[in-house]
């Protein structure tokens, strides 16, 4: 099947014109070329350590914290299909109005097998409801193992686009 993917960074209602169009027709079965480094950590946070669910999302900033699988090193050159390298990863702290939540995940065999989150304990964080966040965590855990075609989210700006999973998908060329 031929696929044609164009990522056009521009605007529908903003001030800037579409800046560039990338068009590629590729055989989907071929492994994607290594995409340019994209900061997938979001929010410009410095300490990115997240593997991502996208097969294309080989973030340049993955920091293996607890590499339990000796094969993981070799996957730098030959990543498993899921693109997730074995190990334990700690996400960049995500700020929200109540504090910072940090999620860590454990990857085994290219799949996310466990996820945990640390919650702020100071200030007014008591109004966070950990069981409620756990609900979202469960949904999130299930979602990470899926291979997606597209990502929906509130990405309004071209800056946000560059950091988005959709951008990583586009770079993989389908």
């Amino acid at each position, binding site marked *: 099947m031929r696929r044609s993917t164009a990522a056009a960074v521009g605007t529908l209602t*903003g001030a800037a014109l579409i800046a560039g169009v990338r068009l590629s027709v590729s055989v989907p079965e071929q492994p994607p070329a290594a995409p340019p480094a994209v900061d997938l950590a979001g929010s410009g946070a410095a300490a990115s350590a997240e593997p991502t*669910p996208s097969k294309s999302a080989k973030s340049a900033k993955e920091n293996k914290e607890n590499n339990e699988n000796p094969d993981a090193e070799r996957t730098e050159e030959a990543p498993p299909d899921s693109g997730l390298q074995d190990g334990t990863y700690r996400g960049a702290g995500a700020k929200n109005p109540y504090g910072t939540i940090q999620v860590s995940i454990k990857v085994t065999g290219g799949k996310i097998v466990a996820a945990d989150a640390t919650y702020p304990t100071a200030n007014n964080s008591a109004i966070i409801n950990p069981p409620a966040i756990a609900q979202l965590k469960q949904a*999130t855990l299930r979602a990470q193992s899926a291979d997606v075609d597209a990502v929906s989210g509130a990405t309004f700006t071209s800056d946000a686009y560059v950091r988005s999973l959709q951008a990583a998908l586009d770079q993989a060329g389908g």
Partner: protein
Amino acid sequence: MGTAVSIELADDRPAGELRAMVADVCDWLHEVDERFSTYRESSEVNRFQRRELGLADLSGDMRHVLDACGDLWRATDGYFDAYACGPLDPSGYVKGWSVEVASARLAAAGSTRHYINAGGDIRARGGPWQVGIRHPWQADRLSWVLDVTDAAVATSGSYERGAHVRNPRTGRPAAGLRSVTVVGPDLALADAYATAGLAMGEAGLAWLAGLAAEGYESAAVTDDGRAFTSSRLPAAV
């Protein structure tokens, strides 16, 4: 500021045809920008706002947009408001509508399987497509994955540009919901419903649930991390 548009055509057609389809979509989106951008002095929207154009002078597309904004204002109890910030700004409808039109143009040109993702709002044709919903706190994670065919997926959130969505009743930034995703047949409506739900705050959860009767399913996350989905949300996993 700009919005990124990703187009994926999965039709088994010659590359030249696919390129021509993509070019047509880009031309159309540029045209929409020229005509409807509030950032362009010469746009039809701004000329109408300045009363250089009367109702009788408006294009068919502009009349459609104004009518739709009026309908949505009523359907959302005033929470979708093209005049929320003062002067006319139909961008909240135009974005989704222009992508709907773009997808229809692709279909008319023979495409049966494609998606267009405009700033996180997606119109998919054919399928099935696996559409991830961005985690409301972490840009590189997903909170749900949907399995959609011939459907639109729109997400509004307070996480990306801060509290940019305002509650038109109070004039204050919307609060209570962190992320709202609406899935249904029309992207312009799905997008407007998601924005209105976000503006309503937690009361929007009940309103969103009521949209299921019209074929629009939804998923929402509150500011304190509680996750809600309508019963027939096409979740893939």
